[in-house]
């Protein structure tokens, strides 16, 4: 195999199909952190969201016509719901019970891994009568976009695309608009930068933060469901691959802003897919996949080392909102 017959189209599509779920999870993180709540729970939220979506698919097998894509689309709604519900725990712990936000995030992650693992195998054994620790999903359809796919070079990005990529683009655009162009978005950003001012303006800081954390759970759930479809076509505890933390790195690298974060996600996605396609050229063993998978993590560290110093977190990030403080 030579460097000439590497599948460059696959680098683009695979890169995007990894970058977009990462983006939507990172946008979730941005909402939470811009509102002042540290969110290390993204990993657990994306896993629980994917669990909820996959549980919906697994429990409605036979209700839909075979070959119907409807359960796939609905699974994203349920994933968002599941992620949002699980995020309520984080919101309650951080806002009502005034827990340390970092600890709470770690707790959510540990709890999510344990709970989904336990529930998946128990539900499989109790209700579906099989000893399995995964919920199978049907294969996602892949689309070729007419006309766009014929553009030279970048046209490759429009062949064999996953439907979830469009779902994510639409949702991401909506939440970009919500954060930067609406009153609610302004309040979220104020809650993280100057909660006292927001309070003085007569807005309930806790409620805004609660909403932002729940949104972060819903978005992480959508991202997790996308990973479940693109990486493995099933839900199993293998979904906890550290991508939630990669999303955190992306949003820190993107300076807690959505558009630069998108760029960071693209860098991760393309590095990953390029490593997958290019490394086998130099080393044909199967083990090399492991080495290829280190690529996004190494790149993250290097990028953070070179560009991370100028970053500025939201000013009230991680602080409990205390009315009496000025």
């Amino acid at each position, binding site marked *: 195999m030579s460097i000439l017959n590497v599948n460059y189209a696959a680098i683009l599509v695979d890169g995007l199909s990894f970058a977009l779920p990462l983006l939507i999870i990172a946008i979730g993180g941005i909402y939470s952190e811009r509102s002042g709540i540290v969110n*290390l729970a993204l990993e657990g939220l994306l896993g629980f969201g994917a669990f909820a979506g996959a549980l919906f698919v697994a429990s409605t097998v036979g209700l839909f016509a075979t070959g119907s894509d409807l359960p796939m689309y609905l699974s994203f709604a349920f994933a968002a719901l599941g992620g949002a519900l699980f995020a309520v*725990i984080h919101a309650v*712990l951080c806002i*009502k*019970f*005034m*827990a*340390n936000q*970092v*600890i*709470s995030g*770690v*707790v959510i992650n*540990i*709890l999510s*891994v*344990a*709970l989904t*693992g*336990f529930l998946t*195998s*128990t539900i499989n*054994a*109790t209700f579906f009568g099989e000893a399995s620790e995964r919920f199978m999903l049907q294969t996602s359809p892949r689309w070729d976009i007419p006309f766009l796919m014929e553009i030279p070079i970048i046209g490759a990005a429009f062949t064999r695309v996953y439907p979830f990529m469009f779902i994510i683009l639409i949702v991401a655009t909506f939440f970009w608009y919500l954060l930067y162009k609406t009153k609610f978005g302004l309040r979220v950003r104020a809650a993280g930068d100057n909660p006292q001012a927001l309070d003085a303006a007569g807005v309930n800081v806790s409620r805004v933060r609660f909403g932002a954390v729940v949104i972060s759970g819903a978005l992480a759930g959508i991202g997790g469901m996308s990973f479940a479809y693109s990486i493995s076509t099933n839900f199993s505890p293998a979904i906890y691959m*550290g991508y939630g*933390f990669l999303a*955190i*790195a992306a949003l*820190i690298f993107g300076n807690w802003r959505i558009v630069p974060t998108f760029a960071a996600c693209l860098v991760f996605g393309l590095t990953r897919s390029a490593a997958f396609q290019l490394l086998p050229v130099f080393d044909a*063993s*199967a*083990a*090399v996949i*492991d*080495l290829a*998978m*280190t690529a996004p*993590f*190494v790149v*993250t*560290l290097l990028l*953070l*080392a070179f560009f*991370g*110093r100028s*970053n500025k977190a939201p000013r009230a990030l991680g602080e409990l909102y205390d009315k009496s403080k000025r």
Partner: protein
Amino acid sequence: MTKNSGASPQDNQQQDHEPHDQRDPRHALNSLNKSLDKATRMVTQGLVKGFGNERWQSLTIPLLAIFLSLLTISVVILIFGNNPFDVFRGLLAGAGWWPKENYGGGQSQLTDLVGLATTLTPLLFGALGVVVALRAGLFNIGVAGQMILAAFLATVLVGYSDMTAWLARPLVFLIAIAVGALAGALIGFLKYRFNIHEVVSSIMLNNIFMLTVSYFITSSHQDPVSRNMRAASADARLLTEPVQLGEASARLPVGFLLALIMAFLLWFFLTKTKQGFEMTAVGKSPKAAQYAGIKIGRTVIVAMAISGAMGGLAGVTHYMASVPSIAPGVLPGVGFDAIAVAFLGNAHPLGAILASTLIATLVSGATYMSSIVGVRQEIAALITGMILLFTACGGYLRSWLDVKKRSLADANANTDDNATKGGDDA
């Protein structure tokens, strides 16, 4: 604990036997309300009595968290149609705290306890690593990566040679400390020099270490049967020759005593030495520490190096004693359980001993419990998660108890017959 759990059922009974006018529903509702008020007041009083003493709160609050999580888990177990007490007894029996129905050849309750100590050792080392970092205000979730890297290098460098046990085992410990310390110091360096948050960098390094090690295992050190890394020689492994324990025999974990000693050493270091004090000062307030002339960068890196060294020790005591060898592509769960242990133990080295005993009991009892009771063994991880969840609320509980204690004191200071009105403080 007995005080308040006993109080509410008693109260409910009283309410059932109370003679009241059956024909007037409003009256019944009124008296129900009154007794509910009374019940909540008694529960509050009981809670304040049991947990209000600040001196013991670092012990009583985790106990309450454990009790609440067991209560929640019991409900989950009941929902799936099993008896919670069977599950808890199965967990205790599997870990050696309770006699099993019958034992296989060469096994006894004593060998189960030895097994528990073997499981506990890496957990305690890992937790000590997290504790040291926490004291310096750092959150080391890189224990898992430090474990896998140290165990891999120790196995390759010593485990595949034909050194005698007296040379090999100390060398394994030294390599673990050196490799772990370097891997930990790297996180501290990245934080100090490049301002990369330690949580982000340690997650990245976890994955980098795990995947790189797994590349080397699958490409050159794989056992063809188990698909795991080829195991180290018996002389390098951290288990003694089989020792006769009554009728049964077991291999004793070499690192167990070392882990206990290390916990006391770290306690001494953190509370009684200048270096340890500086570390705590940096953890409490970096700015104040800097003003006092403490070198922040050096303290951060040293703290992370010690933390990483503990992670390395956890690695060798796990992969070269507790389990046969490294499985490629998986981060050790111990590295994350260690975080739970550290929090549960109140970020205190000696608290970590108690907490690691509890978590190790859950981990090592799970398989036996599952085979006897038929509840999935993941329930053990779920219990750990729930304990952590309630522990995270500990701070809130403390302030709640404080408020209640004061309001109760106020109420008692008033006249005694006023007490019926005091019920609305729930």
